[in-house]
């Protein structure tokens, strides 16, 4: 290291000679931090999203690199949140990339003490069969006075407040067409 470089490495020298007389910015930066770039800078793409926790609806920018979420930050354009996120919103990247996330179908047989593997397609088929069977066993055409009921009380559903409007729409539409009335979500709770 030459003398000149050595002196230029002094924050106080840079403070006196550079654009940062208070020594709170560039003058105080170490060589290491000067060489760093934000994870957001080399992202392949950015998706504009919304925080999945509470109903304030803070704007998020989801940065993606190599097909993985590399960072989630508040969206400064949002008139609701002005770029801020609370501890939960800030933890969204940890949420979606959590190693605890279960990514395989799990199946527990009646009276079993453990999970087993199950193919997604098979699971879907088994569930469809069980819905149709429950519906057949519990179907009600009419009440005691002959007025239409067109329904099954044989199965229920709970959930929707964390889902998209489009998803709730399909859930309600499908269950209603099956005569399944007992559809509820957090709005009741």
């Amino acid at each position, binding site marked *: 290291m030459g003398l000149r470089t050595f002196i230029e490495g002094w924050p106080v020298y840079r403070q006196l000679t550079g654009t940062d007389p208070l020594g709170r910015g560039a003058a105080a930066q170490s060589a290491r931090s000067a060489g760093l770039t934000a994870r957001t800078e080399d992202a392949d*793409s950015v998706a*504009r*999203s*919304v*925080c999945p926790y*509470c*109903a*304030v*609806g803070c704007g998020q920018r989801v940065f993606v690199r190599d097909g993985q*979420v590399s960072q989630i930050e508040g969206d400064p354009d*949002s*008139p609701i*949140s002005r770029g801020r996120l609370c501890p*939960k919103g800030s933890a969204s990247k*940890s*949420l*979606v990339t*959590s190693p605890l996330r279960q*990514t*395989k*179908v799990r*199946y527990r047989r009646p*009276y079993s*003490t453990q999970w087993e593997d199950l193919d997604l397609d098979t699971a*879907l088929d*088994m569930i*469809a069969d*069980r*819905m*149709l069977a429950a519906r057949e066993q519990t179907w009600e055409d009419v*009440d005691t006075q002959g*007025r*239409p009921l*067109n329904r099954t*009380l*044989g*199965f229920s*559903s*709970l*959930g*929707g*407040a*964390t*889902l*998209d*409007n*489009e*998803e*709730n*729409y399909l*859930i*309600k*539409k*499908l269950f209603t*067409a099956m*005569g399944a009335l*007992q559809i*509820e*979500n957090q709005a009741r*709770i």
Partner: protein
Amino acid sequence: MAEAHPVGFQWVMEAKRKGAKVFHVDPRFTRTSAVADSYLPIRAGTDIALLGGVVRYILDNELDFREYVLSYTNAATIVSEDFSDTEDGDGFFSGFDPETGTYVQDSWQYEGNEGSSGSGHTAKERDSASGLEHESHGAQVDGDTPRDETLQHPRCVYQILKRHFSRYTPEMVERVCGIPQDKFLELAEAWTRNSGRERTGMLIYSVGWTQHSVGVQYIRTGAIIQLLLGNMGRPGGGVMALRGHASIQGSTDIPTLFNLLPGYLPMPHHADHPTFDEWVDSIRHPGQKGFWGNAGSFAASLLKAYWGDAATPENDFCYGYLPRMTGDHGTYQQVLNMIDGKIKGYFLLGQNPAVGSAHGRAQRLGMANLDWLVVRDLFEIESATFWKNGPEVATGEIVPEECRTEVFFLPAASHVEKEGTFTQTQRLLQWREKAVEPPGDARSELWFFYHLGRRLREKLADSKLPRDRALLDLTWDYPTHGPRAEPSAESVLREINGYDVATGRPLSSFAEARADGSTAIGCWIYTGVYADGVNQAARRKSRHEQDWVAAEWGWAWPANRRILYNRASADPDGNPWSERKRYIWWDAEKGEWTGHDVPDFEKTKPPSYRPPPGASGTEGIAGDDPFIMQGDGKGWLYAPSGVLDGPLPTHYEPVESPVRNPLYGQQANPTRKMYAHPVNSVNPSPPEGHSQVFPYVFTVSRLTEHHTAGGMSRTVSPLAELQPEMFVEVSPELAVERGLAHLGWAHLVSGRAVIEARVLVTDRLTPLRIEGRLIHQVWLPYHFGFEGLVTGDSANDLFGISLDPNVLIQESKVGTCDVRPGRRPTGPALLDLVADYQRRAGIGPGHNAPAVTTDSEGRERSDS
């Protein structure tokens, strides 16, 4: 709000910086209290007494915004001679039917309209939570009503209101709520002073209000104050619900709820709605004023969206396909039916009732008695593993080898792995772009339900059974894309928006809805979100590039209006109330309403318009009637129908309370929904004996660092690390009384369960002097359960099941318990402890306090 909706709270801080005074009312001193100007500790469950005190303060001192009140509310309307108030009935209004525990509302009506309360009897309405329909419009009432503009008539709403709250004095507020009189007067004075022509005040609440046996009436009291002060429909005013889940507003608008269809259309009832016309008339109420007169178009268009070509005017648009309600099919009734073996299957979609619903043990016992259970979530939540890890396995109540429930756990896609809209708490829809593909078997609900539906239809393709027609005729042909055949969320949004059937052109406004089958609309209040074929919810014009209303960020229902009923931001003549509060006004030159927002009024109807005699529907709304979805165009200080537990809010004690109601002989809400199921033992309250067995009040709420039942936070390491343990906050006084050590253990006992928690001794909780007695309150977070990175007992296990009669939401913000030092017993000894408490409290299985606690003369019953 700083705890549970932190980023929303930045706007409160902005207002404070500009000189606003912030009051925080909460049983516990929180991060919100820390930055408020004034903190008022309150006994949980007494908010109507506090707010009723504010109403009395306004009326007694004539501080209401008189011009607004006269023109825009029903203050001048005259009520039937048959009406009698709770002041005369010791806590009962006229019309109570002790047999069903509900009211006949005929006597509550406006004078001359006594017959128009609809069914007359409200038992059915309670079971079907029909109050929820009013999220988009008022209850029915005839348009032409007698009025006394001088407000002197003894039966005008103004005078009735005055009498009703006459005993809610500052002294009474102190006796009931534990709030010192000077603190109360400071609040009442600031609230009223900050309202009027030049200023507006806002009222903000969360589920701390809704989760009560009188939850709807809490909000009604707030609305009465805001109407009296002229704070509705104006910038900086309003009653704002801070909802707790990303799209809980959306899941109410497009309801995954048993009693509603999209856009607050009621699910048909087998007895009341046998035909399409009767169903539509029950919504439209012929003769009534207001926009709801178009209900027939919304109803026909929904059925057209569901059943496409099969739905024709000749077959009533397949109305016959809809399932019919016969009573209460709500989530708590379902759980009790599961325990009784009446339900075979259960889907859980991003919801964790084993921790998040009241009476966790009932939830888990119900799930353990199913044929099959499908759990769709990001993580293996408690509701997926109750059969091996739940507390009932430890007590021996659930034995895995004997538990028959077949469980499917299907991993779900996260919010960045799918596209679609959330509706946030101000009715604003925001589209999310997809960032990455979901991992492994994880899929969106859109994928799951679309492909499940396809498969069900394939399996039934050859069926000739009439009951399968509804499924086979369903329009179910959404385009898919990508290797996993993900359905297009935009195509679903387009159907929700609605389209012209002949051309497929997306509709721009619900005014285009037709009753002849020429339009199909999935959710009429969302029409416009896809106007011009453009996804309006995806708009992201920066806040720096538009005005403060930010109308080009996302899309709000209805019609992208940001403030509802904003006609009220102008005076009756159409001029702004003040320059400072200018928002929507009448431009006489152009002959139209204009301003910063989309006017919530017919654009060219002048302020001077008066309806011709006998007019109904939109024609019946006068040019100075801002509340266009109400049957009389007015804001309701007094609700002649639509609210099942009374036309005015009344203070009742919580279902479980250590205190005798200081205001009336009637102790608790007599119309609450009770379940006398053996699993649901409710702790005794005065005038019943033995209430001292459970002497303490407990309340629960959120921590900033956790989310609801913890499924999205106890599983996330930064959040788990910030709040690693279940705890109970107690005051230093209670710690001394019960021998509790800071950071030691305590256990809490109710008639349902025992849970344990680490002790946090803190003066954030303070004992309150109520009726000469010291009442201790303890506070718990409700986020903990037995799975995840950090675990703990669930606070919701302590609660029983008692519901608000209007919306069937449970009282899970207040209950009674005992607090004991040390850890709880384990195994069967835990059940013995609960049984011992039940015995000492004299509550057998399924005990409920009596609904009525006065005799027919209105005196306290002495038989208990």
